[in-house]
């Protein structure tokens, strides 16, 4: 990991990975969308609206996954003071926020035909809403504090304190009687969902994951460039 602390070396290693990630993503997306919209069966009770699951669940998975990445990067920043850890956390947040928003929005579009309500304040939805607030709060910290090093220190704390919500989201449907569907994929005794629906779901999940990888790496590269620009400006002021 210390090997990758040098930004130039990091970029040299990761730049070729980006087009690879895009290609894998596109292939997975094509396969997944075919599975989601064509080959998988309509639900016995819900009919075609079950197909929303194939964009809703991956988005929700990503919202949780990206926040975990943010929290992990923040922990690395606190413990090891790795120079790129803060960059990784900062750049992940907007991506995770978009996934979180999509999870909430597609969930609403699914909830209206399925439950008759755009929104209910049950445990799973409430905790995902809380996750959205955490993302926005984290992004706001970076905007609100001018000095980058101080912003990084505060942002780490916010990310780590907020991480408590992630297990709550995951287990909320188990702990509370909820309107939301209980866990049917990531369970101790194995998934309960039909295989013809499971594989498109997993493929879409992987596609979203590779999308995140590609976008995150690009965003890190951009952030490294932004820091370099700032350093050059500071150096120029010093030279005058």
């Amino acid at each position, binding site marked *: 990991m210390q090997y990758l602390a040098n930004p130039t070396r990091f970029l040299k290693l990761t730049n070729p990975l980006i087009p690879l990630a895009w290609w894998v993503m596109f292939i997975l997306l094509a396969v997944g969308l075919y599975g989601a919209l064509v080959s998988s069966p309509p639900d016995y009770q819900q009919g075609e609206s079950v197909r929303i699951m194939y964009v809703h669940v991956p988005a929700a998975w990503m919202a949780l996954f990206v926040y975990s990445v943010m929290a992990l990067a923040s922990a690395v920043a606190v413990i090891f003071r790795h120079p790129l850890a803060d960059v990784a956390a900062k750049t992940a947040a907007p991506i995770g926020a978009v996934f979180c928003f999509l999870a909430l*929005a597609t969930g609403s579009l699914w909830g209206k035909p399925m439950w008759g309500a755009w929104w209910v304040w049950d445990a799973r939805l409430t905790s995902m809403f809380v996750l959205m607030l955490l993302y926005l709060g984290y992004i706001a910290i970076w905007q609100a504090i001018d000095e980058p090093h101080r912003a990084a220190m505060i942002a780490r704390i916010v990310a780590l304190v907020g991480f408590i919500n992630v297990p709550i989201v995951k287990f909320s449907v188990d702990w509370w009687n909820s309107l939301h569907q209980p866990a049917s994929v990531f369970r101790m005794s194995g998934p309960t969902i039909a295989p013809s629906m499971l594989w498109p779901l997993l493929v879409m999940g992987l596609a979203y994951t590779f999308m995140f990888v590609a976008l995150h790496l690009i965003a890190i590269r951009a952030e490294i460039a932004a820091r370099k620009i700032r350093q050059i400006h500071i150096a120029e002021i010093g030279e005058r």
Partner: protein
Amino acid sequence: MDTAANHVGFVMAAYLLSFLCLVALATFIIARDRRLKAEVELLERDRNRKKTS
């Protein structure tokens, strides 16, 4: 998919929204990356020019 089924509008809205948001996100990130890369190259060219002059 049965395109005449009940609630199929919701399905299409969900996929369309996902597509638009993710494309917008990707555009924003890639555009920022390109803009900053150009700026860095410009600044470094200026800096090299100043050094050699």
